[in-house]
């Protein structure tokens, strides 16, 4: 191999899948790119762009029986043709020369083997090490990836580790045999922001130390700036733009790249509407909308006043013992009518529990929640029923929170019947159709089932379902977290429009500080069940008081070199 020839070379790669209906879906439409040794290439795109398919094709891990690789496709690794390689060659290559880490470390590790065993397995397979030596090496690897107490954690099972620790184990496993190419497929998507930052730093540091090439796959352009040399932007199975990092960020050539850079909420700008992809794909140039001012003002009508909310869970221990876990400790806040209160915090901070307790899906342990002056936590179930429809919740996972056996019509009509909204079936159906239109779905969607919609569309259905009950307060629990950035922008715009139109108040729970900054008037930061800081959104982001808030803000991926303004040029 001459120093000039790339480590990995993908030529004209076309992949199509045979769907259950018998149709063929073209996932990759002949893409070509190179990865040089020791370089980091970021592959960026939204769901369905084909970025993961590319990674799986390189690893030759696509399911054989319904995948067709187009004629003329070629993948060369150190000059070897991977697409023609036999099983034996591939097995020797995987894990040794090309290693991979995945999005969800919890499910990517085998739950019934210790993390040590899973690393040792790779080592023994490719290096011929003896078990004892492999164990020592595994401990050293765990140490290298920064796992605390590696000597003890080597015998831990995956579920005994936190998400960040699990991803460190996956990384240790991947670098165990000193691979020449590391493919990282959304390695931080399932993690909290501070953990995400640590993992990215770790990857960058290992890349330098071991001289690996890295193919970094992500949907989030903001992460790429942290350590990529080159950026490839993909959409619908095609490469839209490919270039050095700085060029792609500062002088994006492609309209889609420009759109991606702009539809992500920024910390230093709050447009009245977020840009969406379509704004950039039409003929006339995109005009940034005016900025929007936010924040509670004196005289705001308080719709929900929560005082000293506590929630603890008990679990049994030993013969007679009990352990009490305080999920929410003495949380107080006020939600103003027509405004948004953002709740931020990492997993386990208690932010979701606050939402569920206010919905009375959990029984509060102490505290009051005055809704229009009445304490909803002290009401009898019968009294609360009347209030129920006025506080609604939209969950994170639009795939799991809609009943798959119900049509959209049934989903929308059921709560109306339950709460006696509308006098007849026809009237309710009329209302459902109007609401569907309002959230941007055609009225023929009524007869369809949830699985026929994309994630963003399902979240719109969930919003429409809440709107059927004409709520005053909407709790959005990570409602846009599972969505692609472009879809996220659309849903955030929709939520904003609805707030302006109907005077809804939002309790917006999220781990994404940029999104919270964009949509919130007041922000509350939670850590381990307690509120550590609460202030007007602009004040809190400009002058964070608590060290934890500062830590969270510092962990936000900034992108580079500042996408916001530059991309508009």
């Amino acid at each position, binding site marked *: 191999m001459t120093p000039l020839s790339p480590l990995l070379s993908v030529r004209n790669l076309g992949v199509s899948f045979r769907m259950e209906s018998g149709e063929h879906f073209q996932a990759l439409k002949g893409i070509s790119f190179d990865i040089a040794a020791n370089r980091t290439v970021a592959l960026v795109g939204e769901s369905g762009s084909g970025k993961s398919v590319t990674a799986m094709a390189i690893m030759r891990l696509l399911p054989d029986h319904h995948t067709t690789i187009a004629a003329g496709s070629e993948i060369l690794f150190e000059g070897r043709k991977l697409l023609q390689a036999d099983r034996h060659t591939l097995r020797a290559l995987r894990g040794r020369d090309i290693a991979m880490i995945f999005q969800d470390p919890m*499910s990517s590790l085998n739950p019934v083997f210790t993390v040590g065993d899973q690393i040792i397995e790779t080592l023994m397979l490719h290096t011929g090490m003896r078990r004892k030596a492999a164990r020592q090496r595994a401990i050293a690897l765990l140490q290298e990836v920064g796992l605390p107490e590696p000597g003890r954690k080597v015998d831990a099972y995956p579920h005994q580790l936190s998400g960040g620790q699990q991803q460190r184990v996956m990384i240790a496993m991947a670098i165990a045999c000193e691979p020449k190419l590391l493919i990282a497929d959304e390695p931080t998507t399932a993690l909290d922001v501070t953990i995400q930052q640590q993992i990215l730093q770790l990857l960058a540091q290992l890349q330098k130390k071991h001289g690996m090439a890295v193919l970094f796959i992500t949907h989030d352009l903001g992460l790429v700036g942290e350590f990529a040399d080159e950026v490839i932007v993909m959409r619908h199975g095609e490469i839209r733009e490919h270039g050095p990092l700085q060029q792609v960020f500062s002088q994006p050539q492609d309209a889609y790249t420009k759109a991606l850079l702009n539809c992500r909420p920024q910390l230093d700008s709050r447009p009245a509407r977020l840009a969406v992809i379509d704004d950039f794909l039409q003929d006339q140039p995109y005009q940034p909308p005016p900025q929007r001012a936010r924040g509670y003002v004196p005289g705001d009508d308080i719709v929900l006043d929560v005082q000293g909310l506590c929630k603890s869970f008990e679990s049994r221990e030993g013969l007679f013992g009990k352990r009490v876990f305080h999920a929410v400790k003495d949380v107080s806040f006020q939600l103003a009518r027509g405004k948004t209160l953002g709740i931020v915090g990492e997993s386990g901070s208690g932010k979701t529990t606050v939402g569920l307790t206010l919905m009375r899906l959990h029984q509060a342990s102490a505290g009051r929640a005055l809704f229009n002056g009445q304490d909803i936590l002290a009401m009898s179930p019968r009294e609360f029923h009347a209030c129920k429809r006025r506080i609604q919740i939209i969950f994170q996972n639009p795939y799991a929170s809609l009943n798959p056996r119900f049509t959209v019509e049934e989903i929308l009509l059921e709560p109306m019947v339950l709460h006696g909204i509308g006098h007849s079936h026809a009237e309710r159906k009329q209302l459902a159709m109007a609401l569907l239109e309002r959230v941007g779905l055609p009225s023929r969607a009524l007869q369809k089932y949830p699985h026929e919609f994309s994630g963003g569309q399902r979240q719109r259905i969930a919003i429409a379902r809440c709107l059927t009950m004409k709520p005053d307060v909407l709790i959005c629990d990570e409602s846009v977290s599972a969505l692609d950035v472009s879809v996220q922008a659309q849903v955030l715009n929709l939520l904003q429009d609805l707030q302006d139109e109907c005077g809804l108040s939002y309790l917006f729970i999220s781990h994404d500080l940029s999104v919270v900054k964009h949509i919130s008037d007041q922000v509350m930061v939670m850590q381990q069940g307690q509120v550590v800081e609460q202030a007007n959104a602009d004040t809190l982001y400009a002058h964070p008081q608590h060290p934890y808030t500062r830590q969270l803000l510092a962990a936000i991926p900034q992108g580079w070199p500042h996408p916001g303004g530059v991309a508009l040029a």
Partner: protein
Amino acid sequence: MFAYILRRLWQMVPTLFGVMLLLFVLFNWVGGDPSYILAGKSFSADTLANIRHQLGLDQSLPQQFLIFVRQVLTLDFGISWSTQQPVAEILASRIGPSLTLALPMLLVSLLLSVIIAAIVAYVRGSLTDRIVTLICTLAMSVSALVYIIAGQYWLAHKLGWFPILGWSDSLATNLWYYIPLPLLLGLVVSLAPDIRFYRSCFIEEMGHDYVRTARAKGLSERTIMLKHVMRNALIPVVTSLMMSLPYLFLGALLLERFFGIPGMGNEVLNAVDRSDFPVIKAITIYVALATMLFNLLADIVYKLIDPRVQLK
């Protein structure tokens, strides 16, 4: 762990009490007066009174229940009404033949069904998989009685490959001569549903992300199936196995009946025929106890194969 086992054993006490109460109520109100059964056709008032006294039936209901509790605590259920032998003796002599048939059947069936299920799961969607599924569905749609009668008629009577029925005192003769046909027929009945169930367990596990990780490591398909997938797929398999273990002691009712195997299953049918209450009571209590103990055992085995399980 120890605290957990202790707590679970302690929780069995009220369950067992409930079973006893139910049994007692059923036998007293539904079962009729046993002294009529015992006295036979030529009963006089004297014999009846005598029998009632012997059985303690002339005492008050709470006292009778106490007698029953004492029987359960000492595991001494008295004497069979039909054969006059001690119940414990009868059951002890019946358990052997039952296990001679049921134990090999369980082991062979488990081994075969897990292996076949793993293979068809691996080649799922192929012709082999579809043929096995078809055979299983057909096999499940035919009643066990049909297999027994057809087997006895064709394989034993017409072809003479097996004895039609019978039992001896020698374990070896039983195993090599009398057991094969009922074993074969028992397997035909039990394999089909097990293969279907285990196949779905395997397929579900094969779709998980850790299988992708294992492939990305460069492991062979065989190691992935036998090590990574198997260990996870075994979890529901163990559950279904543990749930079926108490029936080992009950024996295979139909098979024992048709093949003249003097096991528990046969004894249950005889006891019901003759309204032999002490035997029925004893068997019911033993089956209840076995079910509870094997449930506990199943939970402990879970913990061993699945570290995520928390015993609470």
